[in-house]
């Protein structure tokens, strides 16, 4: 941070362009997609644009894989390309690939034009890269905004749909409050420590004995609250169900995997690196947030007729589980978080794929009644949904179980077995909302609406073109759902590859 004042021409910062390649790929892809989206022929817009977006995510993934195992500092001290960044980018770009496939024939892309829709998705991913790799509070804020602004628009991209607009507006307002809180927290943090770099902040805290300083503690509190908003942790989660429900479902799916991974990336880096000397100040608060989040998420998901609301609350609960890995502040804890985020995303995305398929096939939107009798009418989708629900519930032989197993192991090793015991007891509540979904599909009632006893009101809504019931949604949805469900089972039985992948996750953090 110190510049030699004597020199008149400050030396340009060294930039490791190779290390930045995932970011450059995403930004470049966004621009190309935006331009191609202006093309006249409809075929180009509806086919080439998603294809280019897929290719962009593919190239970014390729860059991530090419850089695998590196631990570099990019652009002076602003960004850090370490295993954590790479692992989270794998989740984010993987989520992006799936989200593009899910959004391919979606009404939302039709309504705000394909180029814009997919370019925004790529821009948000670029923001996520900046966020998870930043090691400087200014860069963190830039990343946060670069991630958030495209998502606000994407949420509102069903411009003819009131719920979608409401979702976007709500997300904009709440998100801005969150950003403002984070920014204020950062300002105070700079005021207290006089530094913007994460490692400089850490050394300033320990050398100046700031851990009990009121200004510093206020800054920590503001950062905690702000990121809790962003990561939809209770009690700052209230926006999540509404935004998830109103947003176009592919966007919801993308947010539930990629945004979450990015948010946890920055939380890990900020607290485990920059604020680690003050761990005694923030750990109890985060434990409380974890507990509240698990309770609120699991209880809120009960008896939700809307699948997207249910999955929103479920994602809140899952975020609570991940926090258990975070409060440990150990190497194993970070590994467990990364395993969990990877393993959880398969089942979660498979569930969204099935929900989208049923949204397009029936006129019932994302209501659970759209799944009735699916076991007989669409066994492939039903099996995928069943596996994904079992995985989210953490039943053995699924990826979700292995994610939980890793969390339990990390917590036991970190002397927080009691916290993970609370986790599993609360996760039993989750059976009460995951399993009825399974039962609805397999109970043997085929005709929608024949089950008068259930009393679930059939909601109006869904896309106008979906009113022609009986039509099959695109093959890509079934393929995505089935492949992801297969991955759930494969990694539920052979989880070692994932564990190998995340083995070095905490290498750049300097944890014990």
């Amino acid at each position: 941070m110190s510049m030699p004042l004597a020199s008149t021409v400050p030396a340009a910062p060294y930039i490791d362009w190779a290390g930045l390649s995932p970011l450059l790929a995403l930004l470049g892809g966004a621009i190309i997609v935006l331009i191609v989206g202006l093309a006249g022929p409809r075929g180009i817009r509806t086919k080439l644009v998603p294809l280019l977006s897929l290719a962009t995510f593919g190239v970014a993934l390729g860059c991530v894989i090419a850089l695998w195992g590196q631990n570099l500092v990019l652009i002076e001290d602003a960004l850090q390309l370490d295993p954590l960044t790479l692992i989270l980018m794998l989740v984010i770009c993987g989520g992006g690939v799936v989200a593009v496939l899910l959004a391919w024939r979606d009404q939302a892309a039709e309504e705000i034009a394909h180029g814009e829709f997919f370019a925004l998705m790529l821009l948000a991913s670029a923001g996520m890269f900046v966020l998870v790799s930043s090691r400087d509070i200014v860069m963190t804020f830039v990343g946060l905004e670069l991630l958030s602004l495209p998502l606000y628009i994407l949420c509102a991209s069903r411009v003819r749909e009131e719920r979608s607009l409401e979702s976007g507006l709500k997300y904009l307002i709440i998100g801005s409050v969150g950003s403002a809180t984070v920014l204020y927290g950062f300002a105070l943090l700079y005021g207290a420590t006089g530094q913007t770099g994460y490692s400089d902040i850490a050394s300033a805290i320990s050398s100046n004995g700031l851990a009990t300083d009121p200004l510093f503690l206020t800054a920590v509190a503001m950062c905690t609250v702000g990121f809790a908003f962003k990561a939809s942790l209770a009690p700052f989660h209230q926006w999540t169900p509404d935004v998830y429900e109103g947003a176009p479902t592919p966007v919801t799916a993308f947010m539930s995997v990629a945004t979450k991974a990015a948010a946890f990336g920055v939380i890990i880096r900020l607290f485990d690196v920059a604020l680690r000397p003050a761990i005694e100040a923030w750990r109890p608060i985060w434990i409380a947030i974890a507990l509240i989040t698990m309770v609120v998420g699991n209880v809120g998901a009960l008896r939700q007729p809307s699948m997207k609301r249910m999955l929103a609350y479920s994602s809140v609960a899952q975020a609570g589980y991940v926090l258990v890995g975070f409060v440990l502040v150990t190497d194993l804890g970070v590994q467990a978080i990364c395993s969990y985020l990877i393993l959880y995303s398969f089942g979660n995305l498979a569930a969204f794929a099935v929900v989208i398929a049923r949204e397009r096939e029936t006129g019932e939107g994302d209501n659970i009644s759209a799944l009735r009798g699916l076991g007989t009418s669409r066994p492939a989708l039903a099996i995928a949904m069943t596996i994904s629900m079992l995985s989210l519930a953490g039943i053995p032989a699924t990826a979700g179980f292995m994610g939980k197993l890793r969390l339990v192991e990390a917590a036991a090793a970190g002397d927080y077995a009691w916290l993970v015991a609370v986790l599993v007891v609360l996760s039993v509540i989750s059976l009460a909302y995951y399993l009825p979904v399974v039962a609805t599909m397999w109970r043997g009632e085929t005709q929608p609406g024949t089950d008068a006893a259930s009393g679930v009101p059939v909601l109006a809504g869904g896309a106008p073109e979906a009113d022609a019931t009986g039509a099959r949604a695109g093959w890509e949805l079934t393929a995505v759902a089935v492949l992801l469900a297969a991955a759930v089972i494969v990694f539920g039985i052979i989880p070692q590859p994932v564990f190998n992948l995340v083995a070095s996750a905490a290498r750049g953090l300097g944890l014990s």
Partner: protein
Amino acid sequence: MTIHLSIILWLPAAAGLLALLLPSRFARWISLLGALLVLAYAITLLVDYDRAAGGMQYVTDITWIRSIGIHYALAVSGLNLVLLATTAVIFTASALWTLIDEPDSGKPGIYALLMGLAQTAVMGAFMAQDLALFVVFFDLMLVPFYFLIVIWGGPDRTRAVLKLFMYTLVGSLLMLVGAITTGVMAANGGEPNFLLSELAKTPLGSTAQGWIFLAFALAFLIKMPSFPFHGWMPDGYSNMPIGVLAVFTAILSKVAAYGFLQIALPLFPDAAVRYQELIMIVAVASILYGSAMAFTVDSARLVLGYSSIAQLGFIVLGIFAFNGRGADGAVLQATNHAIVAGALIFVVAMLSRRAGGSEKLSDMGGIAKGAPAFAAVFVVFSFALLAMPGTANFVGEFMILLGTFTSRMTFAFIAAIGVALAAFYSLRFYISAMHHRVGEKVNSFEMTLREALVVVPLMLVVIALALYPQFALRPAQDGTRVALSATEQAQSSAATASTTGNGR
């Protein structure tokens, strides 16, 4: 390192998968064929087991999840061999039953697959020699039953199955946390290793043992079920299809009992000794409560459900007597109860076919009139259930009470009341179904050939065990010695500690 145990383990699931893939008219036959093959394999293992050498045999050990140190480790010992054979018998009977009473909704392939998976999971839990693997199979066991109940269950199935799942998973997930903590703590900062043989070498500290033991005990007591953790049982039993219920009541409860002997006592001996009386109180309460309820309920299924609570109470009591007689009796009784309770579930279905589809005792009566041979078979099972002298159940209960008497006399006295109560409910069940005034809806007919095919072999097993209970007792003895050695040590060290404490 042999592959035999992996073959027997995955055979049922493979047969189920085959049944799903081939045309559905073969499904039930393939399922039966798979079950018979497993039975043959299990009997071969039982015969081939080298009693003189003892210990774990046919050991299979492959590292499964390297990062966490979880092994795919299987073995058979005296303790689980008989239970494996019993499992194979009951699953075969259940597969035979589907030939009579085809599960409706026309998906025999899925039914066969789920039953195959269930059998694989149960046998996995019996054979697992790795703590985490045991927990995985123990939890996995439940999943096929969810679908079996949701698709083929009774009218209130959705609620019943949710209750069943939530109850049992509270226990088994806490058990998971306990198991992982055990491995991590035993490793003491190094690489964890979940092999039971390794874990038994490094017992945990007293505090950790305490809560981990309680987590395991809770999981097992819920699964059995024991009073007061039986809340899922009435709904669950009422809504399971017959073939599924037979397996559930006969086998799944035994996995829990086996878990005490195989896992809880060897790994957490100090805690087991400390909480001995607590568990014994639960066992005795189960005996009294189960017997009393079995004596009062009207549903024939629930008579059996509550009687299972009482019988499992006896088994737990025998295990926690911490001596050879009690534990041997418990293993014998686990075998006996599995066969008898499984058979009686089929009897309930046969009664209901003759009582106009009702399973209420008040709708039955006088069925013996048109079905003397059926009555004869039924009376054998009834006598076995009440532990009539001459049956193996008598031997089992006697050994349990004897063992309890030597270690905790008071509990033995109270438990003995349960023996008398068993006669009450068992005979009430038989008499009110078969004798008394002929019920209004009753249309009695003799046991059909297919029904006989299911229950007569089971009756023969009951008689064979009555004539030669050593068949189950002998192998069990080697196993229980190993299981009890740790607690005996803990008991004696606790005794020394208390005498030195008093002397000070």
